[in-house]
């Protein structure tokens, strides 16, 4: 039997996506690990499932360094390359305490306690060549720091110094890949027509489950907003 999980009309859509609108919706956890989650989704249309998959990559916010104030850089890496490398560092993200800068009411370019985290790097090499690692960054918020302390950032020759302030912010993967919380996000065909397997692997910035639930949440918000717009226009 072919199930149409779509609401009959947009105006009567009000509840949550995981509610009574999907007659046969069943979610089964196939794998739930530290870095990955695998869910079997039954009774859901491919477009919804795929939207969730895509949102895991493009819409779920995560923390990444976005602005770097370079005070000193005598390394061989140019400022822009150094900044790019810092941006690519995955940072542990707390979506409860931080909000997207565009949603913050502080209105300052550098942000406030709610919308940015300051990380400081001050490293020099003296006698020997030194590799600066992600662990050398000191964060003002202990919870928000690189997921691993051993990611190489730059190598310094004796006498070279790197001194900088890095501002991390929440952002979305659709803007830049550094804000993608998921490294893998796939939707595979399941055993039957409307059965799928959603596999999400996290880069470590968020727990994989969190990525999926957040993706669903954002989808829901977006549809709600759409509903508001449409009904406002139709009436």
């Amino acid at each position, binding site marked *: 039997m072919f199930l149409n999980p779509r609401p009959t009309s947009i105006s009567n859509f009000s509840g949550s996506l995981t509610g009574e609108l999907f007659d046969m919706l069943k979610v089964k956890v196939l794998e739930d690990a530290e870095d990955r989650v695998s869910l079997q989704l039954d009774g859901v249309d491919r*477009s919804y499932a*795929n939207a969730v998959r895509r949102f895991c990559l*493009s819409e779920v916010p995560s923390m990444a360094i976005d602005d770097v104030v370079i005070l000193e850089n005598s390394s061989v890496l*140019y400022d822009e390359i150094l900044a790019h490398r810092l941006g690519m560092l995955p940072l542990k993200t707390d979506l409860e305490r931080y909000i997207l800068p565009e949603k913050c009411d502080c209105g300052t370019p550098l942000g406030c306690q709610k919308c940015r985290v300051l990380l400081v790097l001050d490293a020099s090499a003296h006698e020997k060549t030194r590799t600066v690692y992600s662990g050398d960054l000191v964060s003002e918020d202990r919870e928000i720091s690189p997921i691993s302390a051993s990611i190489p950032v730059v190598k310094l020759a004796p006498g070279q110094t790197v001194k900088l302030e890095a501002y991390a912010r929440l952002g979305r*993967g659709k803007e830049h*890949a*550094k804000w993608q919380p998921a490294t893998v996000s*796939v939707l595979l065909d399941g055993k039957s027509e409307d059965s799928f397997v959603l*596999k999400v692997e996290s880069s470590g910035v968020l727990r994989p489950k969190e990525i999926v639930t957040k993706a669903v949440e954002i989808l829901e918000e977006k549809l709600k907003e759409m509903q508001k717009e449409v009904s406002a226009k139709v009436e």
Partner: protein
Amino acid sequence: MSKQIRQLDSWVVLQDLLEKEGVARQHLNSYNEFYSRGLQSIVDEMGEVEVETVSTPYKVKFGKIEVGRPRVIEIDGSVSNVFPVETRLRNLSYAAPIYLDMTIEEEGLQREATRQHVGDLPVMVKSELCQLSKLAKEQLISAGEDPNDPGGYFIINGSERVIVGLEDLSPNKILVDLEKTGGVFSYKARVYSSVVGYRSKLEATLKQDGGINIKVPSCPIDLPFVIVMRALGIKSDKEIANSVSPKPEIQDLLEVSFDKASEAPTEKDALVYIGNRVAHGMLEEFRIKRAQSMLDWGFLPHLGKTDEKRYDKAMFLGEAIAKLMELRLGWIQPDDKDHYGNKVIKFAGQMLADLFRTAFRNLVRDMKYQLERTGQKRGGNVVGAAIRTGIITDKLNNAIATGNWGRGKVGVTQLLDRTNYLSTLSHLRRVQSPLSRSQPNFEARDLHATHFGRICPCETPEGVNCGLVKNLALSAIISVSVPAAEVEERLWELGAKSIRDVPDKLALDGTRIFMDGRFIGFVDDGERLAKAFRKLRREGQINPSASVMHYPPLNKRGYSRLYVSLSAGRVMRPLIVVEGGKPLLTQEMITKVASAELSWRDLVERGVVELIDANEEENSLVSMSAEEITSRHTHLELYPGAMFGISASVIPYPEHNQSPRNTYESAMAKQSLGFSSPTFPLSTFVRQHLLVTPQSALVRTKSTDLLKIAERPLGTNAVVAVLSFEGYNIEDAIIMNKSSVDRGFARSFFYRLYEAEAKQYLGGMRDTFEVPSPDSNIRGYRGEKFYRLLEADGVVMHEAQVQGGDVMVGRTSPPRFMEEYKEFEIKGPYRRDTSVAVRPTESGVVDAVFMTESVEGGKMFKVRVRDMRIPEIGDKFASRHGQKGVIGLVVPQEDMPYTEDGVVPDVIINPHAFPSRMTVGQFIESIAGKAASLRGTPADGTGFVGETVEDLGKIMKERGFEPTGREIMYDGKTGKKFAVDIFIGVVYYQKLHHMVVDKIHARARGQVQMLTKQPTEGRARGGGLRFGEMERDCLIAYGASMVLKDRLLDEADKAEVYVCEKCGLIAYYDAKQRRYACKVDGDSAKISTVVVAYAFKLLLQEMMSLNIAPRLRLRDKV
């Protein structure tokens, strides 16, 4: 079988060769020979200069010539040694002083010995003269040099110049040919007789009537063969005939020649005969003298220029005629001009020797003039004062800097290609043919069988230079010249008989022996002699560069000939000697070479490996593999991959590609961005690129190690899916993953260098570096905002963001002409703004500012601007299989297709790229790259011996992948599974230096040319886009005449001219009298305004300047 060598292993011999000798060895060897021996011999040729003064003439004798260390003389006279880094930075020439010992000799008595500086010799980087050749790797690094730099180029005024190898026909060889001109066959024998610095072509033609004519450049009219022989002093007809050949068949053919020579039966008659033609109408005595000097100087000069050599010349000419007759009789075949045995390549040393010879001659001539003018004063100081060192220094410097070698030879040197490491190496191994590129020369452009192992079969440009510009194969070794005397001695010991006293029997059926274009004698069994010669060479008693070829005739009545070649510039290749069906190279030797206990030189000395030139290879049977050796084989290939040149040897699986694809890739690899040199922080190239995260290829070839390409990579490994993508990758476009781009895929920097020097002018005025101020009377002041980035010293801030037009070095100069002062007496002298600004279409960040001093003592700034280039739509990429394409769309990762494992490709290439191009190598590379990723070690894709698809498939299968490289994939936009499996793997991609930001261009309104008033051309001048003839044709065909008029007239060079209706000539407006006037008709003129193209008006006026009166006939429109 375990004892038998495997081809895969014997490549270590080649590796050792390349490591020890370097990629640029042919340049370095040639140069080293030039400075250590060539210079002295050129000086010895001149020997002395005679100073003819009125009272007591004297001589200055030249002695030993020596070259010092590279150095620079500053403006204040201080001298210091320089390294190449400094010369590049300061725009200096890397040159060393040449010192010549001279003794003054008066009336046979030696007076005074002196050592004089005669000029500067440009030093080839890494030659024996170069300081770098003595430094170890660590020392090179601390000297600021790339330890992997091959050297082999010069630095003139700070720019690196290569003298490209020049291919030439072997000198002094008799080549016979059968030519068809207008339906008739003519037989010709040609010799390019060459001595140092001089070449004379001899041509012998067998005419239709059976006569033989000799043509030499110094004689305006062809000479009959027999008369030439008589003039050379061969008295009897019998001797003349025998010097050609004692064989009756040949002698019969000579009968006509003797009949034709009846008018000059004696030597004197013959000389007069020639004299009549070279010095017509002179005294007989003088005519004879001229004939003799023609024979001594202009006729086969390579055999000598004295009268004793006439016999040798006669014998040589006899041999040329013998070959001609044998060709006529069908005993031998025409010689093949394109056979690589008939070619030599001239490198830097020989080219410089030519130049130095003329420069030194000029110096000596000038010296003589100066000394004779000085008159009575003499002595070391006077001689020293008479030497103008600039004659040699400037001649050499200018020639290398411009590539202008004199006598019409241009383009001899080129700017060293530093696009990437590979392009540098390839450039140093390039060979140019002197043949005209405007003529077809089809055969000369073809690949020849003798190119194998010498010239790369793939690497050649497309277009006009196709096949004329070549590249040396990895295994090519250029011969060095071998002293002739000792080799000749060996030949006599081996039973050769001199031509001066040869027994009749031997002259009739013996083998003729030639040594470097000299006919020296006979031997009874040529093949035996060749074998014995080779045996001695393998025993180390003859130089390995010497080669011998035995050339048996097609017909057994013909002569067999033996050629010994000792000249420099022959292309040889190393081969493993096979004796009795067994290769002499053993596995133990290979192991020892690998562990550096043995070198390839040792193997050559032991006769295990032999250097074979293209001629000697004609006597060899070379087996491609150890398994195929039979008792008839003489040699075994060292390594099949060595047949490729630098560029082609990095192509993985080239044997699976259609051959032109390898050629395309050979050209494209040289345009790809990479890590060209670790010295880039100090590099001052005008334009340079740097790939930020270059990777060594996952699928490598042996030459990756051989050429150290992994240390200087030029691309990135990319996950590539073969798929169409909504039409955005049709016509060779590629789709790129936006996330990959965000993460830094193929990100590069472009550097542009701006230079500014403060020059000093006559009258003590000089340029000054400053921030031009608006109120100090400066012409050409650009406006304050353009100078905003300058610091107090007039130079831009480090790391400043600059846009097109921003001034980076503020500079003002004095007025160009002194007179101009007068105009500005009130305001005072003005200065001109000659600041250096960023190019209008470019922008970036100030990367480095170098402050230094030029050799003229002027302060000099070099400012390098860097610009980050993130891949965008329109940027060009290519795989290593001639598959190039531009980015058609950058796609967000969530829209990209994905595999079940969540792999999202970096690049999507259209399947239509493959069927017609047949680049199967890319498929195999893709599979190999994927297998290598799974296995965790690079894959070997070397041509002919790479890992097989079967083996790679096994690796994939073990790890749960399809051995075919195909996978289930889903469409990222819909989440739907594709109906078919998708081929996805890892392919090495190169970012090519054609980027869209450098090309993007549009114009609405803008500049026009001064002369024609038409829009300017080209992006740099903000030019318009050409609406050409073909576009015009389209509009005509369409009938869109208003559009046509709009494009070609209204929006181009519309102009109004006044025409006198009476005379039809152009009239003008007289502003003073406020009326229109015609010069011809005066008051009776009726003048009308006509709209024409300005270019047409120009044409009318140009015609009028040629005394043509173009008249326009006007009529009313209605």
